[in-house]
């Protein structure tokens, strides 16, 4: 059915598109592809037999394939399975991850798909997982007419046809008409066959029977002749007995096999002797093909032939029903997955509406109820029909009329139909259905895959960004696989042997030759991992693709899963880059354009000077013994007045514009109370002092940002408004989710040092109440701590209470927007994950490097290129980087601004406290350094603060050049000796601004 349907739709598609497909095709696209949709930039082609796509990029006259073109011949190292996987557009795991299906092996090969034209694109609906078991495709019994019409006639190869025919024997039950029945051992012939005898319409049987009849006739003749030829008679009788025995033996064997076949196909029959005439009545005067006993290899051969014919699994079920056999069940591991490709201007969008995915699921109570109701209705109808039939029979006593009576026939047919429907309902109701939601989903794993001979690189957003050169030969290095937005802390703590830099951006890309693409995961990104691998491991292709965890799980005693599957969309946008743009700078600009277009990222206003980023540590929590009890008390490291003094000192050293993050100035210092109310810590000074500090900063184009952590809550005896059991997020095991700290040496989490993870559900009310109670009018800045770093789910066990990670991203994004728009707060975020970018004044603690995984070849400032000119950013505080000149050079190279984290108190004030990791805080130790670095950085970065980075490249060994849109170029020399680049001298470990020809 489906197959026919698909065929028709394909023809329609071909007809609709036929004209388009024939239009001028300047570039060679593999055979079998037809144009599905096109616009002025792109043409989308689809292969009707494999559902793979090709995108013709008109502005570069290049083609991208969803699966590598020519892989049949090019792929040499992959196993058979891998070669098959190379044909897939998606793959997913389900159940407990034991099973992986892909849309090629488990759908396209079974032709279980349908291509549908939609506006601007195509939609392919896959039924993944064979709907039925091929073993069931060899029907045990088929009525003669159906067998010949549907099966035999649709088999093209006469040899195959013969093979199928030979595997069956035509059987019917005929009236005895006085003939003798060959008895079957141990069976009650009357009970089994009633007044009928079993007839095999088979040449072998027929010739035997004919011979027998002939002999019988001759014997009768002889006997009538009253026997002189006693010897001849005896001979004939012996001959007849022989034939009879042969016939009897063959009949018994064949009949027994047939009865066993019936017994085996019926769950309710245990022994052959339990069968009755009712079970065979459909054979009465109806010749039916019955499967002979056949060898296993022949069985498989038949499966193949019949599957290729027009005979469908539905037909098998029909025939079984008609022959009173149990109908073979549909497979349970069957999934319906739609995949859409859309053209959006110059971009291709691949979309999987996850909510439309249908996966095996037990019937809900409601569905069961509904089934029962519908069945009851049908049963009522059936009773009614039976009554009608009975009345009809009663009214027409004349049996002869009845047989040809149309009404009678119509009624019986209806009854038949209804009974069957009821049986279907029964099946549906009875069938044990597993619950098999999808766990992970891999989308377009081979899109743009680059072959062994290609040059270029894969771009992954690890930290600032990293490149994996195509075919770099690092076949022993592990695959790159990192989650977007870092780990979900609600999945529990884990060992941290190495500190990774986070993937803050949901993007990835690939460049081969002079073409490149950048993919932006627009929806479902919080569930995604970006995976990249080089050729030479499993197959000959370099690949990069996203994998989505639709249902997170974790092992703790037993494996525990999120209560439900993700219900949003998966949506990946592919942006195509050609020629000059086809590099990581082009990719960064593509993403920048995307952010501007979709999220309204605004360019920074022009300023002559760069701001100086400063974190001030207000109050900390320390244990002090009082009367023998170690009390936690709040002690100031920097009071408001002292902060003012630091500002004065900064001014004196030439730093006028300061963006100040004041940390630890809410009640109880760094480990501040639950911020349902914005209460300030009293040990730091008076409110008016803080206000005047803010005013002072505003007056010099700077700003005060109040550090507040909304998403992690410090444990304490009494909470102001935080109810851990209600407002805290949950781990998958139902316990309260905690963000643990980790031991610096072992990387193990410390069970007694944690913060609660706030459930995203209560984030918005919390932020609302914080701003409602914020009495400081002069402060216009807020630094929502860690909001740009963490996205955590709430795995509450009730499905409607669960907040999955994508929902959490939505909530955090909305809250940030609300802060910015409704509460008109200026924001500094940390990290920062992409969702925070549209609302941030500045990003601090941005990764300046990548993790440098072994598979990675190069680190690039992708993130910095995306943001420069739109949002100010900087990395880690300079004073905690060990006075490393290389780090400062890195800041200048990437256009990042000076940033320190200070206290007024001496550095040793934190000794013996929990803040020992802030190992160099005293401002006095760094003031001179800050002054000189700011002056030097301001001189080169000031003129380009509002400019886009248009190029970044290595110009000599350890010398990098960053070029800005206004023609300024900054040269950074990491060598320990001066270098001269095109006549420009750059000092050892120095940097220099040069003006280009004014591009």
């Amino acid at each position, binding site marked *: 059915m489906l197959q026919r349907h698909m065929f028709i739709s394909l023809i329609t598609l071909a007809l609709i598109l036929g004209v388009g497909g024939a239009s001028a095709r300047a570039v060679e696209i593999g055979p079998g592809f037809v144009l599905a949709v096109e616009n002025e930039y792109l043409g989308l082609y689809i292969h009707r037999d494999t559902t793979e796509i090709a995108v013709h990029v008109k502005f570069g006259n290049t083609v991208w394939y969803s699966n590598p073109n020519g892989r049949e011949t090019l792929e040499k190292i992959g196993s058979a399975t891998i070669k098959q996987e190379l044909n897939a557009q998606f793959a997913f795991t389900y159940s407990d991850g034991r099973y992986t299906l892909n849309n090629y092996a488990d759908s396209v090969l079974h032709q279980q798909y349908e291509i549908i034209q939609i506006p601007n694109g195509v939609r392919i609906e896959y039924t993944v997982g064979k709907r039925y078991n091929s073993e069931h495709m060899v029907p045990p019994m088929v009525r003669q007419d159906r067998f010949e019409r549907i099966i035999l006639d649709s088999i093209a190869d006469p040899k195959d046809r013969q093979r199928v025919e030979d595997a069956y024997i035509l059987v019917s039950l005929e009236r005895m008409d006085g003939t003798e029945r060959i008895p079957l051992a141990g069976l009650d012939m009357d009970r089994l066959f009633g007044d009928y005898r079993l007839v095999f319409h088979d040449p072998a049987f027929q010739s035997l029977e004919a011979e027998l009849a002939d002999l019988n006739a001759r014997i009768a003749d002889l006997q009538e002749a009253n026997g002189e030829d006693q010897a001849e008679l005896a001979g004939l009788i012996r001959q007849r007995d022989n034939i009879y025995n042969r016939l009897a033996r063959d009949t018994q064997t064949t009949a027994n096999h047939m009865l066993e076949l019936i017994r085996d196909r019926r769950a309710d029959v245990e022994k052959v002797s339990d069968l009755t005439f009712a079970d065979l009545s459909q054979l009465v005067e109806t010749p039916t093909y019955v499967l002979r006993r056949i060898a296993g290899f022949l069985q498989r051969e038949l499966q193949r032939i019949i599957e290729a014919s027009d005979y469908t699994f539905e037909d098998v079920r029909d025939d079984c029903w008609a022959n009173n056999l149990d109908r073979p069940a549909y497979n349970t591991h069957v999934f319906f997955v739609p995949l859409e490709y859309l053209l959006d201007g110059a971009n291709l969008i691949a979309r999987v509406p996850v909510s439309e995915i249908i996966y095996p699921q037990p019937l809900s109570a409601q569905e069961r109820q509904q089934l029962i109701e519908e069945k009851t209705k049908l049963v009522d109808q059936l009773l009614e029909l039976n009554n009608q039939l009975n009345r009809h029979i009663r009214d027409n006593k004349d049996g002869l009329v009845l047989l040809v009576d149309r009404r009678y026939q119509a009624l019986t047919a209806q009854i038949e139909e209804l009974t069957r429907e009821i049986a279907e309902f029964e099946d549906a109701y009875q069938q044990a259905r597993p619950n098999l939601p999808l766990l992970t989903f891999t989308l377009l794993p081979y899109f743009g895959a680059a072959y062994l001979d290609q040059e270029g690189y894969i771009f992954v957003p690890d930290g600032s960004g990293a490149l994996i050169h195509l075919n770099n030969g690092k076949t022993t*290095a*592990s695959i790159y696989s990192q989650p977007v937005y870092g780990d979900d802390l609600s999945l529990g703590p884990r060992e941290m*042997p*190495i*500190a*990774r*830099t986070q993937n803050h951006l949901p993007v990835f890309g690939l460049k081969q030759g002079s073409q490149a693409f950048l993919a932006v995961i627009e929806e479902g990104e919080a569930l995604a991992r970006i995976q990249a691998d080089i050729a030479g491991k499993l197959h000959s292709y370099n690949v990069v693709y996203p994998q989505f965890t639709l249902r997170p799980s974790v092992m*703790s*005693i*037993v494996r*525990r899963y999120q209560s439900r599957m993700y219900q949003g969309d998966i949506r990946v946008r592919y942006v195509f880059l050609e020629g000059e743009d086809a590099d990581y700078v082009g990719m960064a600009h593509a993403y920048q354009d995307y952010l501007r277009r979709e999220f309204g990222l605004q360019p920074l206003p022009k300023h002559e000077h760069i701001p100086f980023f400063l974190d001030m540590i207000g109050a900390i929590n*320390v*244990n*002090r*013994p009082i*009367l*023998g*009890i*170690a009390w936690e008390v709040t002690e100031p490291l920097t009071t408001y007045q002292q902060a003012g003094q630091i500002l004065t000192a900064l001014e004196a050293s030439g730093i006028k514009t300061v963006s100040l993050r004041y940390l630890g100035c809410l009640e109880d210092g760094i480990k501040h109370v639950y911020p349902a109310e914005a209460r300030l810590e009293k040990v730091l000074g008076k409110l008016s002092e803080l206000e005047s500090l803010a005013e002072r900063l505003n007056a010099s184009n700077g700003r005060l940002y109040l550090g507040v952590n909304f998403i992690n809550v410090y444990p304490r005896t009494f909470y102001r408004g935080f109810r851990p059991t209600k407002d805290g997020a949950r781990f998958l*095991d*139902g316990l309260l989710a905690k963000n643990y700290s980790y*031991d*610096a*040496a*072992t990387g*193990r989490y410390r069970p007694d040092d944690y913060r609660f993870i706030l459930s995203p559900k209560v984030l918005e009310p919390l932020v609302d109440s914080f701003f409602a109670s914020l009495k400081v009018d002069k402060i216009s800045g807020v630094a929502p701590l860690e909001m740009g770093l963490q996205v955590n789910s709430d795995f509450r066990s009730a499905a409607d209470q669960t907040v999955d990670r994508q929902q959490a991203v939505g909530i955090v994004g909305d809250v940030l927007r609300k802060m910015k728009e409704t509460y008109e707060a200026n924001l500094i975020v940390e990290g920062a994950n992409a969702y925070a970018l549209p609302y941030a004044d500045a990003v601090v603690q941005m990764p300046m*490097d990548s*993790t*440098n*995984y*072994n*598979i*990675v070849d*190069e*680190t690039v400032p992708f993130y910095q290129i995306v943001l420069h000119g739109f949002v100010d950013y900087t990395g880690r505080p300079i004073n*905690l*980087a*060990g*006075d*490393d000149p*290389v780090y400062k*050079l*890195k800041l200048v190279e990437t256009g990042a601004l000076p940033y320190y984290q200070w206290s007024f108190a001496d*550095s*040793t004030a*934190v*000794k*013996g406290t929990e803040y*020992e*990791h802030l*190992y*160099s805080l*005293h401002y006095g*130790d760094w003031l001179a350094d800050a002054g000189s670095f700011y002056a030097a950085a301001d001189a080169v970065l000031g003129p380009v603060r509002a400019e886009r980075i248009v190029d970044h490249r*290595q110009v000599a060994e*350890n010398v*990098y050049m960053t070029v800005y849109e206004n023609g300024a170029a900054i040269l*950074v020399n*990491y*060598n320990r000796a001066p270098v001269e680049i095109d006549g420009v001298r750059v000092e050892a470990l120095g940097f220099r601004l040069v003006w280009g020809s004014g591009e």
Partner: protein
Amino acid sequence: MRTINKAAKAVVILLGLLMVTGGAAAVPYQGYIYNSRNEAIHAPQAYLPAAAIDGEALGVGPFKEPRDLAVGAGMVYLADTGNNRVVGFDLDGGTVKIIDQFQANGRDDRLSTPTGVFVTSAGELYVADRDNGRIVHFDAEGHYVREIGAPSLTTETADAGFRYKPTRVAVDPLGRIYVIADGVYDGIMEFDKDGVFRGYVGAPRVKPTLSEIFWRRFATEEQRQAMALFLPVEYVNIDADPDGFVFAVEAGDAHETSIKKLVPGGRDVLVRNGYAPPVGDVVGEPSRFVDVKARENGIYSVLDRTRGRVFTYDSNGYLLYVFGALGEAFGAFKLPAALEVVGDEILVLDLGTNSITRFEPTPYTRLIHAAIDHYEHGDMEASVQIWEQILRLNINMDFAYLSVGRSYLTEAKYAEAMAYFKLGNSRDLYSKAFAYYRKEVVEQNFGVFALAVVLIVLAVNRITARMAKTAGKRERVKSALALRLERITGPLKYAFHVVFHPFDGFWDLKHEQRGTASAATIILTLVVAAYIFMRQYTGYLFNARDPAKMNVYMDISSVVVPFLLWCLVNWALTTLMDGKGTLKEIYIASAYALTPIVLINVPMTIVSNYLTLNEDSFYYLILAASVIWSAFLLFSGTMVLHEYDVAKTLLTSILIVVGIGSILFLGLIFLDVINLLLGFVTTIYAELVFRT
């Protein structure tokens, strides 16, 4: 030997290509250091990876299972074990040498599984040619010089089937050759400069335990012979430093003496005065050292395989810095195998990735080395300045406080020295500084002190005289309040009588009702208060605990629980043993018996703030006196109360102590069972709830 002489430029470009970013890359782990309390605290990075070097970059084909590195005379040599060759190269680019086949005494010879290499300062190369069972000596040009075969004395230790397989080699400046070999547990083999086997060094002699001495008495002569005179020890790596010391690391989990610094006689002279012994990671799973490298000024670095770390210690055993990690990223290792130092750079060989990572020191690390260097060369002033600079960069480099403190000490700035020694958490040095400080203060204020003493003596005299005078008068003018007060103070004052006259005192306590339960409770409360007071206010030198981490509930229960247990068990036992005392009487008597603790501990706590460690015996003696006194009082109290003789009291006392022990033991077991039960219930609950 083959030498590949490439254009220097080509190799430079190759090495340049290996750089991941400009200069040194960031590392995929956070730096840390153990502070004086042995907690791991984040610290500035010590070394940053600058380049990865593998066989292909050198143009010699991929390395295969490389095991060892050696540096000398400007060349790096690598034992490319799996390829049966030694690869030598110059870090500045230029020459690459391969030694696999060579001419030895006129015939062709080749290396087979070379696992160890060593280069002398003159550039001579020694290779532990494992599967050929020999050490091969090449000159600086790579020409064969000689081979040193199996030691001739192997019969002494080895079985018939023993095959000599040298794995590592080191040569000291005098030409002595040290070798470690597979399956040899007697120590390091020492050959003289002519290649003659001299014996084993570095196997620690057995220090018999008491039980061993005991068994030895009963052992037969043969058994005695069979008892090992040394402890079997397996070394994984050795290094010879320029001063003639041999550094060696033992295989297996690191323990206090895993790293040894052996003098030619074989004695271990490594100084282990750091905050923790040189065991690598102090917390978590123990480190497993695989290589050691002697560096300048007695500094040494060790490579750990458990977490892929390089630990560096100074000559006194203080940890200077840590870097490295296990992981699949630049700057981390999969299976670190060997460590080498080139100037101030460090090379780490990774067996997992068949490559060498070249690390450059950060400015922070350069400072540490400079400070130590200045110190070793006697330039204290420069050294201290740098240490101060280091402390500005990292307050957790506690060792630096000691260096700075010492310099203050020599400058006679005792108060500053004390502050630094306290930050550096060294009680010894603090005590030293404090002694000077105390002397200084007393000398400066001698007049004041003398006057104060005179005044106090006078005042005490006056008061006692007046009290004696008014003693009679007071009887007459007692108000009702005073009477009520006396009902409490009377029994309390009686405590003084009891402590000095125990036998009379306890007798009267019981028979004359001179003690009350409320007074006893007050005394007990005072004992608790005194204990807490002592915990919190004992001087830094005598207070091992961090007052900031006090838990007053624990302190209270650690006094009250044993006390109550004593009373209960005492009562329970003595009722069985014809004791005459009631529970109340036991309670009162026991509490009174603790009075000396209050009387002595409180003043001693105050005094402790003015004592140095030199006077610690005085301090501890008096504290011990208070305990003995109290114990004696408890004893005599029990005796008098129950009307026992000495022997019976002694027996009872022992039984009481045993009883208390049993109760505590049972209590612990009970708690443990409860704990297990809770765990069981939660697991069952989890299974029930989630296994659906």
